[in-house]
């Protein structure tokens, strides 16, 4: 069988995460919607808006103003009034390290996405990253004051492993986002009036 490249895993990971988030919202009777795409953010947001007839001003405005950003997977979560963005950075490496986490942090900062997952396919984390995540919790919980508008933006990050044999996501136990269920709790809390 031909060796798969990283991109070939995007659809299954995207579907899995979308299903988990939707299930958790359904179980908590939370009417949040989840839209997922792979690829470039600005174009993907435009497609989501067009395909789903979204007129929510905050989403439309964000889609217009966000810079082009090549992402692996992203999810737009909305209650019809407000929205949140989740960025998923997928790697196919023996171990992911600070370089890969830094890439995710960069994407989150540029897009103001408050949630980010670093997912390594069939691989784990480097010992250095494990040390860092264990001893420096702030690395995956970044609070940033925007220069314009004095708005505080949080970036909550998690590190997980995708096992393509089992088709399951394993949690590393490191980082601010410990699990998909915890991610959903965080998201739900954001939309709670």
């Amino acid at each position, binding site marked *: 069988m031909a060796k798969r490249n990283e991109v070939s895993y995007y659809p299954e990971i995207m579907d899995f995460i979308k299903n988990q988030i939707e299930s958790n919202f359904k179980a*908590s009777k939370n009417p949040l919607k989840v839209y997922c795409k792979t690829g470039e953010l600005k174009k993907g947001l435009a497609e989501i808006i067009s395909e789903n007839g979204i007129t929510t001003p905050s989403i439309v405005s964000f889609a217009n103003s966000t810079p082009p950003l090549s992402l692996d997977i992203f999810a737009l979560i909305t209650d019809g009034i407000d929205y949140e963005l989740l960025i998923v950075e997928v790697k196919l490496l023996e171990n992911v390290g600070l370089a890969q986490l830094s890439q995710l942090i960069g994407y989150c900062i540029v897009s103001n996405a408050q949630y980010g997952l670093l997912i390594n396919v069939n691989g784990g984390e480097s010992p250095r990253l494990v040390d860092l995540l264990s001893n420096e919790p702030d690395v995956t919980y970044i609070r940033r004051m925007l220069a314009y508008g004095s708005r505080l933006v949080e970036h909550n990050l998690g590190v997980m492993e995708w096992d393509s*044999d089992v088709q399951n996501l394993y949690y590393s136990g490191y980082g601010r986002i410990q*699990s998909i*269920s915890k991610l*959903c709790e965080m998201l739900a809390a954001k939309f709670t009036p």
Partner: protein
Amino acid sequence: MMNTDKAYIIGLVVGGGSFGSARDSFSIKLPYKQWGDVSKNPGRAGEIANDIVRAVSPVMKSEYGLTVTFETKPEWRIVCLGDLTAIITDLKSYGINPSVEIRKNADISKLVPALVDDNLKRRFVAGVADTIGSMAPSQRRFSDDVSIISFEINGFAFKFVSQLCNLLYSLGCLPDQILWQQPNMQSGNDAYYTQWKKGNKLRVTLDAFSKFGVLGFKSKAVASKENRAKQSKTNIAERCENKTITLNGVTAVHIDENHRELPDEIRGGHFIHHKQICAALGCPHAPYSQLDRLLAYAERYISPFTVLHKGEATEVSSIILADPLLRARTYTKYNMTVAEIVRAIENGKETVIFNGSSYSFSEGRKRGYPLNIMIDAIAFVIASKTGKLNGKRVRGSRDELIADALKNNPSESVIVEAPELLTPLIVTDNKASAMVGPLNETVYKKLISFEPANKYKMKIRPITEADLR
């Protein structure tokens, strides 16, 4: 509040959870004694350990703040340490009692409504499958061509088995079969066999299970792939409603049909097929029309006596002495040659009737002692003499054993002690004996009734001497 990770954890706990008196720990037993034996299969044992660390530990930590460790001796178990208040509260809210062996009395009727979509249901099933879903090589239907995952559910949790089966059904994962822990099903021939409590088995073909696709443990996912790779074809599961029921013989009324631990729907009933138990439990998917057709002629498929019971001559004598109807019989001894019985079968005869001093073979099955069972009894007696028994089972092929016996001694014979009424006869060499029960459709029909509130619970009243005269 339910979520995808809790659904998986609760699946693990329902499958293997064991709560004792300790307030700060509980364990999840993994019945991997053979499959995950550390000395016989260290590679797999390592994978299981890795699965516990990767799949269980982080979710236990994030959902309930529990620390996870594991033990491999005397059996595999996941040990969860910490404050159990939250998990016990959750379990109780879903009607699950945190007991010493949860699955023995599990009832998931309150849990299922909380699994609001297929994904949550799958996560729960994954937890159950990771604990009690056996994919040991013995879990096959006849050959490697039909690999199975078998949910092994000890005890008398009939309701849980049925609920789990229906949950799988709702996901489009059609179970292959349920083997119920009920005496007629575990010991259809032998009315006196007491070792019938072998657990319920809910069996699903790996093809069906993999299509619907959930396992949390990589060791299980790998085993599933390996087993499926041995198949030369894909097995398509059939809806229970459409399944054809075939009955191969008669089930004997068993001494434990009234076992106190059997559920009300089953206790005191007589069952001729596993699907009849599904129906008596009210499963919406049971093949009711086929059952109706079979039960309309149930007298063909039941016996108030043992069909076959094998044992030492003294043990068989005590059974007869303990039963007033059997004790009161007059037994006449016949010396039957094995060759004449084999020849009768070859000539299409199915039963034998004894009449004072003679006997005759018949082609019908309505009345008389079934020759096929007689041959089983004879094989047992011959094998006991020649040391070819495994317990009470004939080692190797029964027909080969009979053929060998006839080759060594063409006039090989056995003593048959037949009663004057149609109650069980005895095949014996005075050391080993086998009781063979008769067929007697017209009389047996009179013994059958059905519980008014549950027409699939068939009842057989005890047979009397008056019935037989």
